[in-house]
């Protein structure tokens, strides 16, 4: 398939920041018209990673779809699993006959792993943002920390990237022996590691000069364009689903919600790239706090798997054969924003419609209006700061 874009003006050249590009974080094609440095128009082209996951979901049973949710956003697989499972459980809970009571320990494990995955996803996000600016080292320092998280996950569920661990009714298996001590040790050494990471890159004058004041998104624009998650908070909107529409054991946890505040010094503007970057770093700090609280309140494992306090999973296979009929929309706070699942059930064992609303999709929709006027280097900075992953966009 050939997409020839005619040159409308002889002074402009059309560049493809094409599907193969080191800094588009996936297969994204940006057709940019520029006069050499300043961008005049930008049209994103997506669909390179479209795997028709929603159509596949209509042909699988409810619990069979969980591995596919891993691939919707493979950087934060646990959160993606959690979004779908919470959606299905909310659907089942609308009728008392099919209601599901998740054991407390399973809930704690879910939140713990979701927050650990939030840390590792943000490490990838800020590391890749720094790497796009030419600082190769902070990315590797972040990856070192992420390897520890991957090791913990691997010991528990066997996988390093797409975990398929959180399932409808709880988690697939209990934590491995010594997991809690390992996680505590990891969190203890993560804090000084993040301090040195920030001393290396975040406070660097060159880096701030590249990020501060670049592509600010005002509060109204952010809400109008459906930005969610850290991108929305960086524009000054104090909205976090974990606090404002809580799920799981989040009502019992104490944590702050970082909001952008023009942290970029004299050139900083509210909602610029630097704010989005800082909000993610501050969220890592908050996630460490949450993980520690969860570890403190986790009940010990019980004999029975479906024990209401110490168990790790309840059996929902019978209930999933006859779920209530109708639709339901649930959303959770993923590292990339809100992931909403609109599930429509026709009472049978397969979903009738499974709509996945992801944060990166709407972050990409702001490109066409935000990019004109920036320089080509700033486009790279913008993509990095928005933390877009293409599997979320294309599904």
């Amino acid at each position, binding site marked *: 398939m050939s997409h020839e874009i005619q040159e409308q003006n002889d002074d402009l050249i059309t560049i493809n920041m094409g599907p193969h590009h080191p800094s588009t974080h996936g297969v994204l094609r940006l057709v940019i018209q520029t006069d050499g440095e300043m961008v005049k128009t930008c049209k994103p082209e997506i669909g390179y990673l479209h795997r*028709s996951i929603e159509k596949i979901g209509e042909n699988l049973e409810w619990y069979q779809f969980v591995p596919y949710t891993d691939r919707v956003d493979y950087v934060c697989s646990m959160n993606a699993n959690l979004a779908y499972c919470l959606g299905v459980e909310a659907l089942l809970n609308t009728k008392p006959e099919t209601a599901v009571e998740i054991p407390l320990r399973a809930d704690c494990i879910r939140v713990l792993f979701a927050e650990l995955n939030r840390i590792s996803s943000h490490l990838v996000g800020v590391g890749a943002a720094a790497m796009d600016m030419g600082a190769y080292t902070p990315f590797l320092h972040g990856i070192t920390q992420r390897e520890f998280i991957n090791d913990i996950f691997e010991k528990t569920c066997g996988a390093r990237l797409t975990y398929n661990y959180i399932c409808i009714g709880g988690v697939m298996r209990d934590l491995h022996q010594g997991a809690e001590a390992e996680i505590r040790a990891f969190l203890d050494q993560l804090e000084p590691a993040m301090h040195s990471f920030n001393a290396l890159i975040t406070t660097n004058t060159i880096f701030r000069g590249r990020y501060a004041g670049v592509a600010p998104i005002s509060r109204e624009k952010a809400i109008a364009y459906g930005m969610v998650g850290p991108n929305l908070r960086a524009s000054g909107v104090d909205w976090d689903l974990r606090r404002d529409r809580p799920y799981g054991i989040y009502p019992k946890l104490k944590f702050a919600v970082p909001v952008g505040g023009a942290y970029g010094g004299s050139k900083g503007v509210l909602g610029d790239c630097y704010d989005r970057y800082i909000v993610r770093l501050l969220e890592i700090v908050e996630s460490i706090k949450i993980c520690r609280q969860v570890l403190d309140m986790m009940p010990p494992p019980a004999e029975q798997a479906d024990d209401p306090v110490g168990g790790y999973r309840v059996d929902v296979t019978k209930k999933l054969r006859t779920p209530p009929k109708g639709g339901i929309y649930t959303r959770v706070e993923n590292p990339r924003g809100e992931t909403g699942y609109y599930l429509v059930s026709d009472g049978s064992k397969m979903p009738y419609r499974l709509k996945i609303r992801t944060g990166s999709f709407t972050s990409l929709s702001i490109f066409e209006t935000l990019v004109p006027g920036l320089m080509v280097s700033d486009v790279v900075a913008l993509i990095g700061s928005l933390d877009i992953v293409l599997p979320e966009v294309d599904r």
Partner: protein
Amino acid sequence: MKNDELFGLLQVLYPDVSSTVAETGEIQWQVPTGIFLEVARTLKDDPRFAFDSLMCLSGLDLSKYPTAVKGEFVGELLACVYHLHSFEHGHEVCVSVTVPKDETASIPSVEPIWLVAGYFEREILDLYGIAFPGNHDPRRLMMPEDWIGHPLRKDYQYPSNYSTWELKREGQNFTSGPYA
């Protein structure tokens, strides 16, 4: 404000809207296509509603959705379901617009009202075939521009080839499940 209070306020302004409750407890406001644009504008601008955020816009193919009578389906209809949220008041609501499933399927675009709808509508145009007059860039989003068919419809026929690529092989059945 609770959902039925909000619905009461809306019905005063637009008597043609109706509300349905599903078994799951989801309340959907059914809005006819003709008045949908004004209703959407009211929902955004009226300070009692103040729905400034379109959370999610999904397409739905109702042709295989069962009704209360066993064995009967709703009919050859497509629907668009809008989930709205207000940052100011905190309430959420679900609005649904239904159109017949043929070439004339079209719903006025709400992109001038909620800018995020641009990409959502392009996706529905691509995968369901509902036109959105008023969208600034009505092209397919996910599928290639010269793709034939709308994949997420329930009666979608998988093509056997795309340009020079073979997509089906003899004896291989790509579809499974009850809607094959």
